[in-house]
């Protein structure tokens, strides 16, 4: 009798419900409730206090004519392409380390890769900001010392950009036209320690006999990468792709600290998350910010769905 066994189980195991209650309460309060509350407040004109005025779908209508918000998606599209390119150095580093014959050297490189992890991410961000400083920064000094500056000026004169000049230090974070290129070169050589360690874990599953067979067939190093290594770490690459897309779309702390709450000069670095922050904590339009948050959340949800549906890589 299934009904009888269910009863017996409840009688015996009911204290187990207490195990799930704390998690459930936390998740419902701090993850489900904010979404509901955000949706509720998105149909009000609301300054964060007690007074609010019901406006229906007005906030949503406004979002679709808000040029800053719409432009911020162009920026985020570009940043996604940048980050897609920036994923590959980690893969290459992991494969190179994996192919080293000496276990000792593999260990040395792993240690060297872990070392930068001790630095809080905020600190590495600020050090990069320091390196990009127009007057005392390392990047300008390098460009001057190698004579690359005159090349840049010549190219600039040829195309008439009006960005690089002979005797003016390059303001990487101060020139509107340079904001996006600077966001691209930021963090060079783009080694994600987390990514490298993840890929190395995946590469371990390749047995030596696979390489031996490949050697017997006379397969070169590049073909080995495409036929042996890449297929085996596709699962890990997909995992970091999903994380990268979600972080890029939702993140704005980086832009807030590198530039400012207006997205830097000319607003060239404005991303959707930063615009939500700007509307709520700078302009005090909390209702509108909630509507923007709901729209952004729906877009990310859609992308995650597509990602799960079409980029599934079966093991």
């Amino acid at each position, binding site marked *: 009798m299934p009904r009888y066994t269910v009863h017996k189980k409840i009688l015996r195991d009911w204290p187990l419900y207490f195990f799930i209650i704390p998690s*459930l309460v936390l998740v419902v309060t701090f993850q489900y409730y904010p979404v509901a509350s955000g949706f509720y407040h998105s149909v009000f004109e609301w300054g964060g206090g007690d007074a609010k005025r019901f406006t229906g779908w007005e906030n949503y209508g406004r979002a679709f004519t808000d040029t800053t918000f719409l432009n911020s998606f162009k920026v985020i599209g570009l940043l996604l392409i940048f980050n897609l390119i920036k994923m590959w150095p980690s893969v290459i580093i992991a494969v190179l380390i994996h192919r080293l014959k000496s276990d000792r050297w593999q260990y040395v490189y792993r240690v060297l890769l872990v070392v930068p992890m001790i630095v809080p991410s905020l600190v590495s961000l600020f050090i990069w900001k320091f390196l990009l400083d127009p007057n005392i920064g390392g990047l300008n000094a390098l460009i001057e010392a190698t004579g690359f500056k005159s090349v840049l000026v010549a190219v600039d004169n040829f195309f008439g950009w009006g960005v690089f000049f002979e005797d003016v230090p390059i303001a990487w974070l101060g020139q509107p036209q340079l904001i996006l290129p600077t966001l691209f070169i930021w963090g060079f050589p783009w080694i994600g320690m987390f990514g490298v360690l993840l890929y190395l874990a995946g590469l371990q599953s390749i047995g030596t006999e696979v390489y031996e067979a490949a050697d017997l067939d006379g397969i070169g190093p590049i073909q080995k990468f495409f036929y042996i290594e890449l297929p085996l770490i596709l699962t890990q690459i997909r995992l970091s792709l999903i994380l990268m897309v979600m972080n890029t779309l939702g993140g704005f702390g980086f832009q807030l600290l590198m530039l400012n709450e207006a997205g830097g000069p000319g607003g060239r670095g404005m991303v959707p998350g930063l615009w939500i922050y700007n509307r709520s904590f700078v302009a005090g339009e909390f209702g509108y910010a909630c509507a923007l948050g709901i729209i952004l959340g729906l877009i990310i949800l859609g992308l995650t769905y597509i990602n799960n549906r079409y980029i599934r890589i079966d093991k």
Partner: protein
Amino acid sequence: MSASTAPSPNATKAARPLKRRQYDWPKHIVLMTLIGIELFPLYMMLQVSFKDTSTFLQQPWLPLPISQWDWSNWSFGIKLIAPYLANTVFVTTCATFGTFFFALLGAYFFARSKLPGKGILWTLFLILLIMPGVGTFVPVFMLLKSLHLLNTLFALIILGVSGGQVLNVFILRHFIEDIPKDLFEAAEMDGASHFQRMVHIVIPMAAPIIGTLSIFAFMGGWNDFMMPLIILRDQELFTLGVGLIYLEGEYVKPWGKIMATYFISSVPLLIMLLFTMKFFVRSFSAGAVKG
């Protein structure tokens, strides 16, 4: 790692006469160059931290000889950042412990019970796994305001604990399910309660994965600056991130002092890493990415 690659030297040596020899030095050159550039900001941080403003402006790139090191930057940095570090250690430690206490209980429920309602609850958790938490910081801020939790460290702890639930419950559930059922049945025979079974079976068996996951949770909390920036107002409550943001925002920048502060803010993770190196260097055990 060593288990799978240890036999390789002998095997490749035997096979070597058949094919052309491959050298490792081109790989070493590429790796050293890239990792060298990657470590350059760290080098700058360390050597600038011993310079006062005039020596820094004279010679920004090369380190000073040890006799001329300016340790006053370091005492400035310690005085400035130590209270923030203490706050951060308190918040992240509490949040990490809370996360795993509740996540283990939740995961045990999903893995071991056959109670009605489990399916629905699991769906509730799974939805959150793909539902992004972005764009909701305004409602979270308002919720904390109505709970009178703004400008408290407890708010950061509880946000950390609740934010860590879904993913950790998801991963731990699979691990608890993989523990042999016989162990639980034997414990049940001996009259152990569910909580005792968790303490004596689940925690020892899942210790490695809990270790790895809690390092990630700890580092996530450590590096978080967005929520503290929004929530904290009083300077004595500042966590590391907020403190560093205010330091960086000063108009006059004594780089030596700033870099010394940056370096000191890295010391706690350095200590933690020395103790947990094997988790990182032996790379995440393959199980960490399962699921």
